[in-house]
C-alpha cells in the first residue's frame, strides 16, 4: 500500500484579488503525496507554500480564490473502498469538506500560541474535534484526548488537559497542537513550519516525536519549511517553490547532493553549514524576492539567477522538464 496516491494536486492556481492588483500566490502547482510518505515543501516566505496548504484544506480567506486546478483526495472508507474527492469542487463549509478537514487531513501550524484558542482549555479544543468527527460520548472523548496527550509525551496529561494554552511552554503547546491534529487519526498531516518558533533542543524533541508518530499511525506528512536542515532530516521527497511555482521536485538525496535548479543551488550555498568554519563570505543570492505585484516576466528567478541567459529566461516561462520519473525541474538550462 506504500505507493498509493493519497493527494494529487494538479495545476493549482490560487489568486488573491486585491485592490492593488492580482497576486498569483500559487500559480500552477502540481504535486502528489503518497500514502504513508513524507513530502517536503521548501521555499522562502511569500513563495506560496502556506497558501498551497490552505488551498488543500479550503481554508482560504477572501480575497483569495482557487482559480483553476484540481485537488484530488483519495478517501479510504473503513471497508477498504476508495473514493476520490475533488476538493476544489466542494463548498468550503459543506459537510463533506468538514468531514475531510480534521479527520482525513489535519494541520499543525507554526505559532502554537496564535493557533490555539486562549479562552478554552487544551482538552476542550481536542475534544471538540473528536466529538465532531467520531461518534463518541463526551467522557470517552475526554479519555481519548488524555490518551493522545500522553502519546505526544506531554508531561502529566491528566492535568494538562484542563490547562489553558498560556499555562504551557512553547514546546508543550506544539505537543498539544499535534495531539489535536492526530486525535482523529488523519491520513495526511500538513505540518506548516511546526518547529520554526521553537528552540533547537525542543525542535529536536518535536521532530523525533513526529517521526515516531508517523511510524505508528502510518500517516503521510506534507512538511512545509524553509529550514533546509529539517528538510534533509524529515522528508523523502521535496518540492522547491519560488514565487508561486514549483521549480524543482526530487528525492531528497538528489536534491541536496545534486540540485538542478539554480535557485536551489544558490539556496544551499547561502546557508552557513555547521562544522565548516571558515572566514570566507557566504555566497549570498543577489537581490531580493520580487514583489508579488510585480513578478518578473519569464522565469521569475531570472533577475537573481547566476546562470541567467539573456534572450531566453526573461522571454518566456520555462517548461517543466522531466529528468527522470521522480524528478523534474523548471529551467531552460536542462532543455
Amino acid at each position: 500500500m506504500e505507493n498509493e496516491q493519497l493527494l494529487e494536486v494538479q495545476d493549482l492556481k490560487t489568486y488573491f484579488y486585491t485592490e492593488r492588483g492580482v497576486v498569483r500566490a500559487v500559480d500552477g502547482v502540481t504535486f502528489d503525496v503518497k500514502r504513508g510518505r513524507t513530502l517536503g515543501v521548501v521555499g522562502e516566505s511569500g513563495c506560496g507554500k502556506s497558501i498551497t496548504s490552505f488551498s488543500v484544506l479550503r481554508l482560504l480567506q477572501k480575497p483569495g480564490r482557487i482559480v483553476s486546478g484540481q485537488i484530488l483526495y483519495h478517501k479510504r472508507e473503513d471497508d477498504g473502498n476508495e473514493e476520490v474527492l475533488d476538493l476544489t469542487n466542494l463548498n468550503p463549509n459543506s459537510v463533506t469538506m468538514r468531514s475531510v478537514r480534521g479527520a482525513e487531513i489535519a494541520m499543525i501550524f507554526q505559532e502554537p500560541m496564535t493557533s490555539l484558542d486562549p479562552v478554552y482549555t487544551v482538552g476542550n479544543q481536542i475534544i471538540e474535534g473528536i466529538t465532531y468527527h467520531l461518534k463518541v460520548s463526551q467522557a470517552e472523548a475526554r479519555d481519548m484526548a488524555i490518551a493522545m496527550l500522553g502519546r505526544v509525551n506531554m508531561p502529566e496529561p491528566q492535568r494538562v488537559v484542563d490547562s489553558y494554552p498560556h499555562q504551557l511552554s512553547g514546546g508543550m503547546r506544539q505537543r498539544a497542537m499535534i495531539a489535536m491534529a492526530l486525535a482523529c487519526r488523519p491520513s495526511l498531516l500538513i505540518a506548516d513550519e511546526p518547529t520554526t518558533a521553537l528552540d533547537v533542543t525542543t525542535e529536536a524533541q518535536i521532530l523525533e516525536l513526529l517521526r515516531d508518530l508517523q511510524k505508528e499511525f502510518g500517516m503521510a506528512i506534507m512538511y512545509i519549511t524553509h529550514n533546509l536542515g529539517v528538510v534533509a532530516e524529515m522528508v523523502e521527497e521535496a518540492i522547491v517553490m519560488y514565487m508561486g511555482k514549483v521549480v524543482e521536485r526530487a528525492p531528497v538525496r538528489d536534491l541536496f547532493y545534486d540540485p538542478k535548479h539554480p535557485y536551489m543551488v544558490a539556496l544551499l550555498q547561502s546557508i552557513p553549514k555547521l562544522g565548516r568554519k571558515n572566514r570566507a563570505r557566504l555566497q549570498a543570492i543577489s537581490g531580493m524576492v520580487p514583489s508579488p505585484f510585480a513578478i518578473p516576466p519569464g522565469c521569475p528567478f531570472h533577475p537573481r539567477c547566476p546562470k541567467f541567459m539573456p534572450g531566453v529566461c526573461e522571454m518566456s516561462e520555462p517548461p517543466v522538464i522531466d529528468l527522470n520519473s521522480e524528478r523534474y525541474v523548471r529551467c531552460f538550462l536542462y532543455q
Partner: protein
Amino acid sequence: MTDNHQQPILEVKDLKKHYPIIKGFNRKLVGYTKAVDGVSFTVPAARTLGLVGESGCGKSTTGHCIMRGIEPTAGQVIFHDRERGPIDVAQADPNMLRHLRLNMQMVFQDPSSSMNPRMTVFDIVSEPLVVNNVARGKELQDRVAELLRVVGLLPEHMHRFPHAFSGGQRQRIAVARSLALRPQFIIADEPVSALDVSIQAQTLNLLQDLQEQFDLSYLFISHDLSVVEHVSDVVAVMYVGKLAEMAETEELYHNPKHPYTEALLSSVPNPDPEAVKNRIVLAGEVPSPRKPPTGCYFHPRCNYAIPDCAENAPPLREISPGHTVACHLAEKLTLRGVTAVRI
C-alpha cells in the same frame, strides 16, 4: 589575522541581573528571578564574540545590561575606549553614558518593530546624529547618504518609509542607524533570525564587511548555532542565566566539554540527507530562572549526571588555555562535537 585580538574592547565581570519576585497584599519579597547570574566574558577588539543559548537563558538581558538599557544588579562592564581608556559602563554617570553610546550601539532582531513606521529612513538614520549634535543641514544629508551606501541601499530611497522596504533592507537600515555614530562596538541581538535564508547570507556578509572596514567588534547574540559558528571568533554558551562553556569557535564546536553544548550541537538539523543521525534528544525543558534546580542547573536533563551534580554547582573553570567550562566532569567525559556537513 593580527595579534591585536588579545586587546579586549569589552570585559564583562560577574554581571548579574536579579528581578525581585513580589507576592501578596503586603508585597513581600519571596525570591529573585536570576535572569543573568554571574556572567563574565571578554570581547576582543575587532573580533566577534558569539553568545548562544535557548530562549529565556538570559542572553538578550546580558546584551541590554551591557548597554545599560536594563540596569544590572551587580557586576562590572568595562569598555576600553580608544580615547579615554577603560570605563566601567555599569557605574557610568549620564554624561559618561552619552559618550559611551557614541561608541556602543545595538542592532535588534525584528527590523519592523525596532523602527518607527512614521519616520522616514532619513529620520531614522539621522536621529542619532541630530541628537548628539554631530551633523546638521547639508552635512547631515551627506552623512545619511553615505551610510545608506555603506550598507548597500540607494541614497535616493532615504525619504521613503520603512514599510516600503523588504525585511532584509529594513535590517540594513537598522545597521546603518547603528553605524551612524561610528561606534567601536556593536551588540547584534539576533540580527538575522527574522530574515529569509537567502537574505540572511547578505546580512551576515554585510556585517563581516563592515567589521573589516571599520575595525568593529561585535557581541553577536543568537540561538542559531550555524550562524554563530560562521561569524564568531569566540563562542559562549549560556544556560539559565549562567555561562556553561566558552572557547574559541573551532575548539567549542569540535571539542565541546559541557554536556549541554554537546546536546545543543547535536540538535541542529543537518542539511545532509545521509548524515548519521545520532542526535541527543534532551528530556524535559529548560528550567525557569525563577525556580532553578539545585546544584548544576543542567543536571536534571544531563545524561552524564552524578549525585554530586545535584548538590554542588560547578564553577566556571579553565581546563585548557582559552577553554572554560562549568562542569564537574569536564576532564572525564569524551563528548562529540559537530561532524562537518558534506554538501
